Each structure stands twice: as structure tokens, then as C-alpha cells.
């Protein structure tokens, strides 16, 4: 079974989000911060009238956001999980590629800062590696993270 992925670039790394879950790719827009949320939640944007939360995918996958050079190429990739819309900020969007399931290998336990449960797998894309994201997990485990954050604040 072949799956199509939107290839997103962050630093030198390539990440893939299933095309079926990508609603649209937007240019950067005004983001209204939502105070006292997790650091990677950047805020909300007005997506054609719908208030949509936006996260920084760099920070979410454990890359440093400080290394990013703001540029015209930055995009917000809007994905849909269970009718929930969330935007992910990436350095740039490269392409859409087709990956055969047979090309996908199980990811190592940790890729960057991201544990394997957040990944669907890793695929060879020519010379380079494409890290396939499990978008559902990345967006659904936020509650768990949020709880941990609260715990950290309480316990110090």
C-alpha cells in the first residue's frame, strides 16, 4: 500500500505528514498567543473564520526553535485529526511524495527528541531520510504533556 506524504523541512531534516490528514498549507499569519499553555503551542490563528490552534513542529519534535531563521519559506501546515484542526509551523514545505509501505522501516527508539510512538516509521527518500509522523499521536498526547507540565510547575 502506497501512501502519499507532504514533505516538511525543519533544519536539515525531512518530516512527512500523511496527505490524507493535511487540509491545507498556509503562509505564516498573525498568531495570537494563548498564555499559560505548553511552550510549543504558539497560539491561535484566524483560518478563514475558524479559530485554529498552531503549534511549532520544531519544538514539538524536540528540535531547537532558536536555530530557525525566519524566512518567507515558513509555512503553517493545517492537519485534521478526528475533525480537530491544528496548524503546525515548519521551516518550509518541499513536496508531496509517494512512499510504499515496504520502504518504511521501524524507527529507532528516539529520533531527535521524539519517541518512537510519535512516528509511523522512517523511509529512505533518495539520499535522505524521511521521518514519517504519526500525526494522531502527536496531537492527541497533548493532554498528557500538559499534565506533566503542571506537575513540573507544582513540584518544581
Amino acid at each position, binding site marked *: 500500500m502506497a501512501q502519499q506524504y507532504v514533505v516538511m523541512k525543519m533544519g536539515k531534516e525531512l518530516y512527512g505528514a500523511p496527505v490524507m490528514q493535511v487540509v491545507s498549507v498556509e503562509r505564516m499569519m498573525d498568531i495570537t498567543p494563548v498564555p499559560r499553555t505548553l511552550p510549543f503551542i504558539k497560539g491561535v490563528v484566524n483560518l478563514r473564520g*475558524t479559530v485554529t490552534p498552531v503549534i511549532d513542529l520544531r519544538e514539538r519534535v524536540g528540535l531547537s526553535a532558536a536555530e530557525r531563521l525566519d524566512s518567507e519559506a515558513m509555512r503553517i501546515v493545517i492537519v485534521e485529526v478526528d475533525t480537530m484542526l491544528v496548524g503546525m509551523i515548519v521551516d518550509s514545505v518541499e513536496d508531496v511524495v509517494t512512499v510504499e509501505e515496504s520502504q518504511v522501516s521501524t524507527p529507532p527508539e528516539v529520533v531527535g527528541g521524539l519517541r518512537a510512538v510519535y512516528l509511523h516509521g522512517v523511509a529512505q527518500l533518495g539520499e535522505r531520510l524521511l521521518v514519517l509522523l504519526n500525526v494522531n499521536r502527536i496531537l492527541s498526547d497533548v493532554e498528557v504533556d500538559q499534565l506533566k507540565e503542571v506537575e513540573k510547575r507544582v513540584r518544581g
Partner: protein
Amino acid sequence: MDISQYLDSFLAESEDNLATLDDLCLALERDGAHDDTLAAMFRAAHTLKGMSATMGFTAMADLTHHMEDALGYIRNHPSEFQPTVVDTLLAAIDALTANLDQIRDSGSEAGIDHGPILERLAAVISGHEAGGGGSAAEAGPPKAFRDRVIELVQSGREPVVVEIAFAPQCTMKAVRLLMVERTVESFGECAAVFPDVQALEADADAPTAYVAVIVPDEDSNALLTAIQEISEIAAVNIVRLDSLLTSTNAPDVQQARVETAAAVATPTPAEEAHAVRTAAPAPGGKVRDQTLRVAVSRIDEFMNVLSELVIAKTRLELLAQHGGDHALREVTEQIARLTTSLQDGVMQMRMMPVESLFQRFPRMMRDLQKTLGREFEFVMTGLETEMDRTVMDEMGEALVHLLRNAADHGLEPPEMREQKGKPRKGTIRLSAYASGGHVYLEVADDGAGIDRDRVLGSAVRKGLVDERTASNWTDAQVYDLLFASGFSTAEKVSDISGRGVGLDAVRGKVESLGGDIRVESVPGQGTTFVIELPLTLAILPAMLVRLGNYVYAIPTGSVEEVARLAAGDIDSIQEQPVYRYRDGVVPIVDLGDRFFDTPCRGEYPWNAVICKEGKRRLVLIVDDIVDELEIVNKPLGRYLEQVEMFSGATILGDGRVALIIDVRQLF
């Protein structure tokens, strides 16, 4: 066939039908076995059966089928109707509701067992029928089968009914019956079979089976021979229609048989189902408007696009003013008018009559009378009053609480009422009405009223208030104590009320919707709870404030006053700044500090918004107060549902998002 696309409408329509059945059950209990009521119930059950069978939900179809049988029986034997039957029917409706809920949640009927309720329904029929002994059931095919035969006779197509006795050693009766059906089909039309193949598979004990066949007279003997040739079938007999029909006490059917020519066309199931939808009189005898079911989410999407349009329109207006082109200005004005009426139209679409919320209460109140040992009339008025769908959904639980409260604590027990010279039966009234941009919901009882001294006594004991300050309080102030958290005067904690969810929770819910609740009471005459709610949640007046580069909205409902605080206005208690306001001090919260750790407090005077929530006040310090206007409330969505400080967001004229502050979370 992919049925998933029909699932939503199936669920919605089934819900409607169940609600109708529920209502009619109550009517049945109240007014007795009227044929109109039973006919309407029969139609609703029939529609449910047809739809669930089409959708492949067999458990539901089976249960509705048996319900239909029971209803059919009552309809044919109105004299035997007993009120206990209503309990059975209501239990069946509950089982169907649970079944439907599971379908909605999981999409399947896995694990559903209607066994017990099916037995009760069967007892409705056999309880009467088998009264003369168990032999009646064995003497011939069951009623459903006979009804079908009667139907055929009435429509002038007289069937041949064949009784088939299986050989005692026959192990696969279902297979044999299937073969019989095949054989029959080669001669004529197989109009009815009992038991059906599935039932026979489940219950292999049935010694005989019946088939009704439409077949030319001259072929009937050949048919018999053919069936006889199937192995493991012991005997085949033709059942005389006369005996079949007289065993059902339906003389009119006999009549019909004689006058076959004047056959009255019995509606086909499809026609019947159709009739329910188009011709069923709405409660109250009004004719319903033609309606279209639209998901709320679609209307919300539409609303989103519309608010974008409003923003674009505002920009267009600016351009037109600067451009000075007369024609452009004219078109812009026209577009502005059209946009406004579009907006009104969408708002209107979100409104629904409260009937859809109220319809489940009569049933609940009926059950309450039984469990609480109270006697009362339950009256509902203003069913046509419209309110925002979202507000309505949120109010359900609060109303349940108030209604239970009225029945449990409001009304006296019947004996006590008689002692006081009041009618034994109390009255609980639920009314809705709209007035001046608000919708009012009232729950009133004609019970004992609120006992001021008991309330005060209880509050003093619980340390909510001290005796001396409370002694010269007005009644309204005392009644207000009922809403304090941790207050309950119920002498006994019952299953119905007094279980933690107190009136404070009701008030919390009402206030979170931007509404207000108050109580009026006359000792000895009764108590009335009045809930005031905004017509809609989608649009609310708000104050816009600025913090740094961002604008936030504070609902005007939470704002008491706007002030500029000078150094002299501020005190501190335990190093926390407070503001001397009226006769007390109010804590000060610096929003910049609270949100971003960058205080707004700099040079005096400080820009302050004094907020109130119930009796509590809070001063919010902001950088600037920008504006006050009507905003469109949009949810932050599921991803941010953990965020408590903001109840939603709105889109400003320049297209940016402003968060709506939930003041209650800042206390």
C-alpha cells in the same frame, strides 16, 4: 450497501420516533387505550422497525417488531388494556434508547441482549391470550401470522395456509423450512411463514411451521405433494381459513371476507411509514413546518464564512469612504445591508423551540411521582419559545435538577397537603418565554415555600453566615443562601436529589452561560426558580482591552465598572494590592503579570476593569481599554480545551484573533 452515510439521519429520526412513543405512552396511561393513540404508537414502532432493519440493526428491529406485536394486540383488545402495560412499553422504549445510544457511540449492536424485555412484551400478549391455558398457543399459528393472513383476505387474495409438522428426529428444521419455501415458490407466492428461518434456527423445538401461499386452487394438491416429498417432514395439512380466522376474535374480518369485493386496501408498510412522517399530527394539533435537518457544525461553518464576509465588508466600506466614488458607496451600503440580514438569518437558524429540550421531562416527572410518593400535575407552557441550540443543550441538566428539587423538596407529601387544606395533587409548572433579548425558564411548584428560619438555621450551623448579621436580612438575601456551595437543607438524602450536585452547580452552569438565576417564594404557596438566559451565546457584548500587542475581550456581563486607579486608591493586604471599592476591598490582578509575567502596572493611574462574579469582585489591570462592542464567540477547539482562562475567541475587524477571558477562572 454503505449505510454509514445514512447513520446520522437514522439516529436523528429514530430519536424523534422514540420521543413520540414516549409521549404517546404517557397519553395511553392518562387517557386509556384510545385507538388513535395506539394507531400512532403502532406507526412509530413500525417506522422504527423498518428503519433499523434497513440499517441492519437486527436487535433493534427485533425489539420494535415485538413491540409492534404487543401494540397490535392491545389495539385489537382495548378492553383488556391494563395500565401495567405502559410500564412494559416504557421499559421497551428505554431499551431501544440504550440500543440507539450504543449504535451512536460504537456503530454496532454488539453485546445487546433484549431477552428480558422481549419476554415482558410477549407476556403482554400471552398474558391475556394464554389466560385460558397454554393450549391456545399450540392450537394454531401466532397472531402476527394470522394478521398477515387476514390482511391478505381483506385485500382479496385468499391464501392457502399449510401446516407442516416436522418429523421428531428432524435436526435441521431451518433447512427443511427453507426447502419448503423454495418448493412453495415454484408454485406460487409465499406470503407468510411462521416461524421464520432465523427463529427456527434459534429455537429448534418448534414442532410445526406454517406457510401462507398464494396459489391457484387447482395447484394446491400438487403443492402439498411436493412439500410432503421433502425428507424429515412428517405431515402436511391445509388449515381451513375459517378456523384460522375465528380463532382471532375479529368478526369484522369475517365480514370483510364475505364482502371481498369491497376490499379496503390495507396500507403497505412503506405507505404507513410515509404517512407517519407527513401526516402525523404534531402534539397540540398544529401542522409542523417543513423542516430540513442540518448539522450544527455546518451552520457554524457557515457562520465562520459569514464573519469573514463581515470583515471584508468593513474594509470595503473604508475604501468606499476614501475613494469617494458615489456608485461604489451605494453598492457598499447595499452589501452591508445584505450582510446584516444574512447574519440575522444564520442566528435564526441556530434557534430551536424549547420543546425539543422539554419533551423528555413528562416521562421523568411521571417516574418521579412513583419513586418519591408524590402526587402532582406536571404542566409545561411556552414550548414554542425559541432559544440558541447551544444554550439549550447546556441547560438540560440544570432543569432536571430543579424539577427533581421541586418534586422532592418543593411539594409536600399528599397527606400533608390534605392536612393543610390544599388539593392532594400538587402542580409543578415548567414554563419558557422570551422577553427583551432574554429567554426565561421557570420551574414553579405550589408546595410549602421556602422556610426562612430553616434555611438560616442550616446556614448558621454550617458556618456560611453568622446569626447576627443574618437576622435583618431580606428574604431574597436568605433565599440566596440556597445557592451557596455546601448548602443543602434536605432532611433526608434521597436517590433523587441531595446528592452533591446542589443548586450551586445549577447557578454555576447558568452563570457560565451568561445568565442569572433567582428564586421567589411565598410560604405555604410555593416556590419559583427563574432562570434568565441570553438569547444566544454566539454573539455577546464585550469590552476589548489591550495587553502589550494583543487585544482581549471581557464579556460585559462580567464587568461592573471601568476605572482609572490612582496611587491613593490602592492598599495592600499581606503584600497583595487591593482596591478600596464601595464598602470593601477588592483584590487586584495584573493581567500582564498573570498572562506573560510582564506587569502592566507602571505609572499611575492604572487602567482597571472591575469585574464581578456573583458576590465576588476582582480588579483587572490592563494596558489600555480599547472599545466595547458585540463579538462573535468562537470555540478554541478540542486541542485547547484544557485552557481554562479563556472561554473562547473572537475575530476582530482587522482579522486578528482576540481571546475571550473567562473572569471566573481568575479569582
